[in-house]
């Protein structure tokens, strides 16, 4: 297999401050919404940086896998870029869910409350929002609002992202490699992003 270990810088670094701003905004919004007396989310900025670095490493590995010696010149499409961002976020999990120790019993009861569900799924929700924004950014019909996804599909997408996150957690990956299982994840998610774009954008 062709290998090029010389990491190149990704151009999408130009968005990284915006993605961090989004993460900070999501942290504030969720903590206003949830029951902050017992549960809250906390953005870990070191892990946020790590997730973005993981994207860059994975992007380069995936490009060399696809294009080999032409990797530096060729580009991958937006669906695969979004797929790699989602996987990097879910692998690193930049948000922590914090529970006040004396309130643990209350939190277990509140776990089924939709108000608190978003807090427990904060990393999945963040990956979801990044996908929406990047599809919006590539939308050629500017001036439209950011698209929404209907309730049932949105629920199943979050369930999928949750399972991907748990799977990556078990694998303890430091980057999304060109191993077959990772390639399946990248391509499957890229196809889903493509179909979401076809339906909603």
């Amino acid at each position: 297999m062709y290998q090029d270990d010389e990491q190149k810088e990704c151009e999408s670094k130009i968005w990284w401050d915006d993605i961090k701003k989004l993460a900070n905004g999501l942290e504030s919004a969720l903590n206003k919404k949830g029951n902050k007396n017992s549960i809250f989310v906390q953005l870990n900025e070191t892990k946020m940086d790590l997730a973005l670095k993981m994207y860059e490493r994975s992007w380069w590995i995936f490009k060399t896998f696809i294009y080999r010696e032409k990797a530096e010149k060729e580009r991958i499409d937006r669906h695969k870029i979004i797929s790699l961002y989602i996987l990097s976020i879910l692998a690193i999990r930049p948000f922590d869910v914090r529970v006040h120790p004396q309130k643990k019993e209350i939190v277990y009861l509140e776990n089924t409350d939709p108000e608190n569900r978003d807090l427990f799924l904060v990393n999945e929700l963040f990956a979801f929002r990044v996908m929406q924004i990047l599809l919006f950014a590539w939308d050629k019909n500017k001036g439209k609002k950011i698209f929404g996804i209907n309730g049932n599909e949105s629920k199943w997408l979050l369930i999928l992202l949750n399972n991907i996150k748990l799977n990556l957690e078990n694998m303890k990956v430091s980057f999304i490699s060109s191993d077959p299982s990772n390639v399946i994840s990248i391509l499957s998610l890229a196809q889903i992003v493509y179909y979401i774009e076809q339906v909603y954008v």
Partner: protein
Amino acid sequence: MIDRNNNLESVSARINENGRLQLIPENNEEVSVVDVAPAVKEGVDHMIANNFFLE
């Protein structure tokens, strides 16, 4: 090969040494990540302003 837009020959492919089909797209993304950077910023600002569409 047929690509997503049913264009013949815009996508080529090879079978590598492990028997895996690898696509070699010839029609790269026309709009680059740099081109969409202002829209990413706009999207982030919009989402924050609208409280992330939390229900």
